[in-house]
């Protein structure tokens, strides 16, 4: 494995590469087409380089463990807004998730509906393109429209356009309190309607999930204690017509519940392939029905996790729909056979291919990982 200790070394390795490279952060997110190539680890590029709590900004090298970033932020009562999922449980992987991996996969959690995705908090990147050139974009300030936003382009590009070496985020204060409401016994249609009602209220819901297996629809609110108590009461009244509502205010239990939603705990350790579908929330139940699998809803119904038997070609079952589906967990053989990423319409596929050719002209960075 190639293991550079600095950005300069990394850029030299990429420039000198004779064949494909498989870019690795913590190695916990084995998603996409299997990539043949020499492993290039970014785990040697570590450290928080700048943190200004008063400006809500943090800058870290891409190989910095996510846990370290979160620890540094927590010490000042702050956090990453987008609540990145830990894939280890679901994928059965080991290792230390890195902040660069979070960006490369644009990993967000339940709070995405209110605070945005990883790409929304990301304000700056440095990366090494496929020629070995170091490129920077964005910066360390949260309002910046200077030139094109390659920051967004790099988020979710899975190391196919460049190898991230440094990432900068806008962060937020961690709330003083949180509460979780559970509505019991709703059908999937009722649950999506209840969640739409909650998300359309002024009470700043930061999580809206439906767990059909447990018969529970969950809502989360966060903030100052008195405010959380007030909003929990208002939401309980708002949800009462849908079903029996219970309110959980114990910080530990609320955190555990939502970590379970974030990490799709319901499907961890169970046999089968796992897909992730993003749709307009009201389309959720209809799309879920097409999958024929077991489902878990997040994002008010707009994010559907699906568990299906190994090797199921879910794309064939889904047909055409407005949104996208990603095969997140499957054997290498299945991921080689079924496109893990949503195939794109021709004009968009042409743009994607064009960008890949410009940023990685030799086609050596995670080649084929996102290919349909």
């Amino acid at each position: 494995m190639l293991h550079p200790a600095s950005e300069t070394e990394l850029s030299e390795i990429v420039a000198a590469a004779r064949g494909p490279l498989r870019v690795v952060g913590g190695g916990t997110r084995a998603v996409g087409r299997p990539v043949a190539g020499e492993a290039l680890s970014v785990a040697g590029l570590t450290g928080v380089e700048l943190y200004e709590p008063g400006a809500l900004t943090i800058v870290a090298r891409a190989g910095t463990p996510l846990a370290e970033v979160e620890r540094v932020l927590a010490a000042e009562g702050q956090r990453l807004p987008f609540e990145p999922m830990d894939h280890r449980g679901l994928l059965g992987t080991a290792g230390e998730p890195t902040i660069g991996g979070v960006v490369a996969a644009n990993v967000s959690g339940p709070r995405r509906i209110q605070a945005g995705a990883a790409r929304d908090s990301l304000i700056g990147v440095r990366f090494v393109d496929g020629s070995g050139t170091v490129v920077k974009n964005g910066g360390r300030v949260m309002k910046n429209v200077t030139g094109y936003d390659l920051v967004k382009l790099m988020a979710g590009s899975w190391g196919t356009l460049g190898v991230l070496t440094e990432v900068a985020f806008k962060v937020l204060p961690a709330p003083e309190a949180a509460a979780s409401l559970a509505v019991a016994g709703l059908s999937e249609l009722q649950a999506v309607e209840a969640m739409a009602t909650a998300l359309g209220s002024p009470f700043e819901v930061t999580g809206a999930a439906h767990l059909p297996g447990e018969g529970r629809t969950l809502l989360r609110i966060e903030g100052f204690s008195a405010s959380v108590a007030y909003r929990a009461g208002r939401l309980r009244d708002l949800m009462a017509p849908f079903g029996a509502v219970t309110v959980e205010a114990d910080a530990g239990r609320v955190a555990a519940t939502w970590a379970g939603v974030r990490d799709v705990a319901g499907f961890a350790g169970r046999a089968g392939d796992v897909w992730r579908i993003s749709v307009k929330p009201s389309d959720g139940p209809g799309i879920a029905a097409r999958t024929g699998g077991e489902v878990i809803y997040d994002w008010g119904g707009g994010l559907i996790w699906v568990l299906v038997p190994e090797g199921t070609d879910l794309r064939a079952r889904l047909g055409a729909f407005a949104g996208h589906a990603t095969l997140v967990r499957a054997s290498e053989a299945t991921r080689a056979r079924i496109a893990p990423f949503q195939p794109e319409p021709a004009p968009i596929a042409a743009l994607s291919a064009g960008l890949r050719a410009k940023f990685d002209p030799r086609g050596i960075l995670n080649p084929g990982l996102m290919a349909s």
Partner: protein
Amino acid sequence: MEMPAPDAGILSRKNRIVERLRAALPAAAVIHDEAEVRAYECDALTAYRCPPLAVVLPASTEEVATALRICHAEGVPVVPRGSGTSLAGGALPTADSVILGVSRLNRVLETDYDNRFIRVQSGRTNLSVTGAVEQEEFFYAPDPSSQLACAIAGNIAMNSGGAHCLKYGVTTNNLLGVTMVTMDGTVMEIGGAHLDAGGYDLLGVICGSEGQLGVVTEATLRILRKPEGARPVLIGYDSNEVAGACVSDIIKAGVLPVAIEFMDRPCIEATEAFAKAGYPMCEALLIVEVEGSPAEIDEQLGLIMQIARRHNPVELREAQSEDEAKRIWLGRKSAFGAMGQINDYMCLDGTIPVSELPYVLRRIGEMSKEYGLGVANVFHAGDGNMHPLILFDANKPGDLELCEAFGADILKLCVEVGGCLTGEHGVGIEKRDLMVTQFAPEDLEAQMRVKDVFDPDWLLNPAKVFPLAASRARRERAFAA
């Protein structure tokens, strides 16, 4: 600012180009009379003007595609235009270009409260997007100062912000999807009512690309339920340093105000003379606004005022009524108008790390003396987005150039302290030649490669964003082809 010389070949073919456009589009959609095209000779950066070759005002995505296909075939540069409110010259034409205005594309196509989005044609004004959903107590969050006039198309092109970004983000954080036409006339849907991209985040790179990648004709925008209420507090300090420290402490305390606005003494004096909002005369004023129920607002403002008091304010005024809240905002909202009463002004837009506020304000004050031009500061302090207003006299020979040199020095200072040239207005032509202070050649090259993919012939708004020297080879190759 230098603009490339118009292509003589295109100028000589004006009649043919206009005829092709007129043959393919409704008569009212093509303007070519020399007197009439003058209405499109500039945007809100009025110091620079140039009538375009022609103007097309399509009324549908298909008409946009038709116009672009013709211009593409003729090798004519196209300058997309929303409402023409750009302060950066984003919609400034060249004599050999066709202005493509989206002002007739102004309809609401779909409102969906359950899924919390609205789909509109891109010529619709920012404020009228909120106008279309406010009867259901919803709103569209980005609120640039020009929101009464500016179009969503321009907001997307410049990734516009506003006063409430600290909590709600900027355009890119509230944009879910677009219908876009590339220069060759290809129509595509990117994103939609669902969240995030299935592949590369093309939406993210289109937003803020200043009309250089494609013409957005429709947009799906996130709408939010209005908060139960909002209330501001006014805090005055006798130094910028203390006000800056107060901002930092408020943020560190875990409160996330929806807005933190900052005005310095020259700005306070000007607005007071103009709007008589009853502001105290001091060195720095903060307006901090929070949202929620009355009790939630009390709790947050209580904490903010406690922090403010620790810094010994010369004034601390909590709005007790709707009327008082309006008075607190009155001065801030009339700041630009007030400065306009005094003289011509140039509005800058650099962003700095919040921690550098006191230093940057002090340096701007020193430079103001060196240049002999007055400057007032009014800006979004929570996110470090500054808006220095430099006063000059457009009728005095040399004053504009002096003002531009002063502005360039301020922007260089923003970059030096770790910030950027523009926080929400865009580069346009105004900051184009300063890009080299923020970006290395390879950084600009990476950005220009994106344009190569979307617009290989460099026909869409070609003389913007990138320094002319950096983009010359690409632009000239286009004309040679």
